[in-house]
């Protein structure tokens, strides 16, 4: 009986090790973008796996553990937001250029350093991510940083796939609007040319 119990424990441990190996990176990446700082991201990721270990028998029996892990992350993050009484501000992890004093930037095709442009654009996207409503933000983060497909996101958010698609659509539309505004401000595109796009 004791031998069988030890064998059972070994299996659970192996299952847990596999879970960590397969999912720690994606969980940590999504946690990083969700919390906005390295320390909170590590805490959140560790909390997810602690809960996974506590429910390891159930988790090992699941066909796919990933939606469960991200659902736990979502609940843990929402708990933290509730307890702190405010939504944690997403701090841009990259240096942001001053949006108040844009210099006219040459059109994309004439730019020598595309990396600079990419950094500018990415900082806008990071800002836009923080401004998204929680439901849309989580869906987008889970897809872009957690590598979840639509069905997995639906499982993690406990909502239909249709809801995932509509939230993703709205989230991206907001990001797109921000990028279009930025591009117009910096004369990367002509205002008239994309006025319709900005309004879309």
């Amino acid at each position, binding site marked *: 009986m004791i031998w069988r119990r030890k064998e059972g424990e070994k299996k659970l441990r192996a299952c847990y090790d596999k879970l960590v190996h397969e999912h*720690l990176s994606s969980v940590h990446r999504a946690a990083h973008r969700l919390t906005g700082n390295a320390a909170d991201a590590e805490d959140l990721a560790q909390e997810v796996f602690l809960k996974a270990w506590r429910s390891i028998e159930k988790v090992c029996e699941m066909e796919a553990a990933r939606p469960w892990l991200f*659902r736990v992350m979502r609940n843990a993050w929402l708990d933290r937001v509730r307890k702190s009484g405010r939504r944690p501000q997403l701090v841009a992890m990259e240096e942001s250029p001053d949006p108040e004093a844009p210099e006219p930037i040459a059109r994309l095709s004439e730019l020598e350093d595309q990396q600079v442009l990419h950094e500018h654009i990415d900082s806008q996207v990071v800002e836009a991510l923080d401004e998204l409503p929680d439901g849309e933000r989580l869906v987008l983060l889970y897809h872009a940083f957690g590598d979840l497909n639509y069905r997995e996101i639906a499982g993690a958010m406990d909502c239909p796939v249709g809801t995932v698609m509509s939230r993703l659509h709205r989230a991206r539309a907001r990001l797109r609007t921000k990028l279009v505004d930025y591009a117009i401000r910096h004369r990367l595109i002509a205002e008239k040319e994309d006025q319709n796009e900005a309004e879309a």
Partner: protein
Amino acid sequence: MKLKLNCSDVDALLDAFEDNEIDSVTSLRVQKHLDSCTGCRTRHGWLQSTSRSLARIRQRTPEPSPELRRRVAGLPDERQSRTLSWLPSLYQAAALLVLVFALTFLLLPQAGLAEMDARVFVRSHNATQTVEGSDELDTHDPIEAAAWLRDRLPEARAPRGAPPGYRLTGARITEVAGRPVGLLLYEDGARKISCFVPSGRLELTRGFDEIAIRQDGLTAGRCRGHQIVSWSGSGGAAVVIGEIADEALLAFATVNFGPAAELF
């Protein structure tokens, strides 16, 4: 689906097209429309720009540090070393034998204290679900759950409400060590817990014959030959007598569902 897609159709499918979440036939139809529609092609271009930006941001997001990897990998070892060695080792499938006795106002000053100030929550009530003769009600209504329990256990106490973050999902009557036991079932989306609802007269248990550990307001030891754990707090205390499966016991909650202490 229609043979020819219009701009509105394509707009609704563009995200799924970009994410490879649609079937190949629909994907071809979308591509065909994009090839001939400047407006949709522009919208798709912006979607691709956004996706590329997110991919760059993702690439710059740091990987888990070696320290985090070490901590996460070591979590099972941490948990095991905290397990009280005197607890019996039980198979997960074994029925959980728990008898709940509440120490309430009999031990504490009577004024201002209600009965059943304490609750005992158990993680994973699957073992009790498999006991033959278990009867269950699916409901989110605490009043319905209370009435259902009292129909079957006349002295069952009415629930006071769900623990923070949890919602009531039902009630169950099962049998533990030959005695009927009522359970209120809760879940928070990721975890299911049960709250034991006592029936019949509550027996006071006093003192320990042998104490194995005292920690953070918990006392564990033996009483009249049984392994027991007790908590004491300003709201009351609960004593669990019986065999406790490892990792089964979740928390003790005060009447106000204040901060619950994890036992193990």
